[in-house]
């Protein structure tokens, strides 16, 4: 794994690599993580006793029904929520607060509607520069933004506003924006849940292609078994009372995978196994 001791080390220019730079992938280690929400005197246990190791460069799917704590778990890794038991480390460092080494993608693309695609992508680098995390100048950042937009197939739309883009394009723009800050871990919270079936298939192909290319660690939250099997190296099935991880299931399917593989015999067998784990 590449040495990424401090965010400040990102100040080292990586000009030659441009948009096709390989990101260092971070491993994630959760041990005994628990979270209890208190509201109006009522205590709700959202997570209890979660142990999970995500290997560097792995694509791990968190699968479970609504309310099983998968979003909570993701937000704890993102640093948006503090856990009240256990510990979380990403790349060997304890998580405290959101940081650009852990990119996040949401069900809605969350693009800034007042910025063009290109300026959306430049938001992160510019915000980081404003707090002195790096000193790269505009031409360099813009070149990198353009390279990434080229990679996600939006070079033609760098000056379009989000409302002018289709749903799939908005998600690709959000992907480019998260990628340009060079995260070593990408957290995806049901990112394609609101898309139509055809666009979803395209986004699966897109995500797999990007993951093959950048080789970063991805934790992908979903409630769709097929999506989990198609994308994941492993699937962590969540549920139970109190909510936690019930089982981590290997997906023994080869790579690269394609959205067309979903009705092969091997695929269906994995799917059946996961379904029975979910309902047990």
């Amino acid at each position, binding site marked *: 794994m590449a040495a990424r001791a401090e965010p400040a080390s990102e100040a080292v220019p990586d000009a030659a690599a441009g948009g096709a730079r390989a990101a260092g992938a971070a491993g994630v280690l959760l041990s005994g993580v628990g979270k209890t929400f208190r509201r109006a005197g009522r205590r709700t246990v959202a997570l209890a006793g979660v142990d999970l190791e995500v290997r560097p460069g792995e694509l791990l799917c968190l699968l479970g029904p609504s309310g099983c704590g998968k979003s909570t778990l993701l*937000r704890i890794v*993102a640093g*948006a929520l503090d856990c009240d038991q256990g510990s979380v480390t990403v790349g060997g460092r304890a998580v405290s607060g*959101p*940081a*650009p080494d*852990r*990119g*996040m993608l*949401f*069900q*809605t693309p*969350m693009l*800034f*509607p*007042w910025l063009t695609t290109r300026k959306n992508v430049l*938001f*992160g*680098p510019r*915000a*980081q520069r*404003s*707090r002195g*995390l790096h000193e790269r100048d505009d031409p360099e950042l813009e070149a990198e933004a353009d390279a990434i*937009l*080229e*990679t*996600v*197939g*939006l*070079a*033609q*739309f760098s000056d*379009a*506003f*989000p*409302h*002018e*883009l*289709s*749903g*799939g*394009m908005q998600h*690709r723009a959000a992907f480019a*924006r*998260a990628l340009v*800050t060079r995260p070593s871990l990408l*957290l995806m919270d049901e990112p394609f849940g*609101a*898309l139509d079936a055809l*666009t979803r298939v*395209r*986004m699966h*192909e*897109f995500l797999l*292609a990007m993951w*093959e*290319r950048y080789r970063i660690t991805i934790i992908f939250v979903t409630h769709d078994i097929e999506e989990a099997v198609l994308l994941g190296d492993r699937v962590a099935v969540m549920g139970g009372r109190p909510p936690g991880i019930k089982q981590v299931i290997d997906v023994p399917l080869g790579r*690269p995978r*394609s959205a067309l593989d979903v009705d092969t015999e091997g695929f269906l067998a994995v799917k059946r196994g996961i379904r029975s784990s979910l309902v047990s």
Partner: protein
Amino acid sequence: MSGWYSPHAGAAVIEDARPPGPGHGPGSDGPGDLDDRAELFAHRRARRRARTRRVATGAAGIAGLLVLWQAAAMLLGDQVALPSVSQTVAQFFHYLNRPYPAQGKPLWYDLYISLRRILIGFAIGVAGGVTLGSAMSASRVVRHLIDPVIEILRPLPPLAFIPLFIVWLGIGETPKEVLIVVGVVPLMAVMTVAALDEVPDDLRLCARTLGASRGYTLLHVQIRAALPFILTGMRLAMAGAWSSIVAVEMIAATSGLGYVIQQAGDYLDTALVFAGILVIAITALVIDVGLRGLLLLADPSRRG
């Protein structure tokens, strides 16, 4: 601005361009992509054309109203009851730069006086309302404390306070400006709270995971996202400010457009009354066009 953050915000005007899959080279300049870009520009052109058409139709409506007015005045033939458009315009130019006998000041001076009162009161009111609204949005305690006060003040016509302000602040400029402030603050506070509430938490989290500091996120994301809504509030508040200032000038002032209109009415100079109303209408329109321009700058999805 509702719908900004919905999964399919706005009209997805472009069919999804083929994402780079393993099959064909990423970011290929295929003919499909070029078509899409042309489609984007065609869409923008169409929206611009639609806007031009809309403005032209609106202008035709106003022209129609003026024609009706002129025709009605000519049919009626009573200059005091209903002066014609031409008489009104003539009166406007007559007094624009010539002192009005009952007051000794030309029209432009009264416009300047009214405008100054409005702009000072409006600026203070907007600053105060936005600050108050931000505080209410940031702190639950402040919100619960201030909310009922605003809900009591908001439906009150600011004019009800005129006698009080005169007793407290005299008859100078201050009570007029304070009156505007009192009208603007509650509206802007309510609009600001609603605008900031509308910004999704995940948009803030998104900015933070991209490496933005708390302060940068507050300024460049939360307040920036609320800006279109706040500008809409300013358009509403400006309309209220005009009705307050004209009313207070009719009751307790010796200058300003409201005073001129009141005086002209007392002397049965209805052409000058209409001229005064016309000046208010045009000035308010110019200000609103300016605010609308800012709104279009702030929210690209409204352009066209």
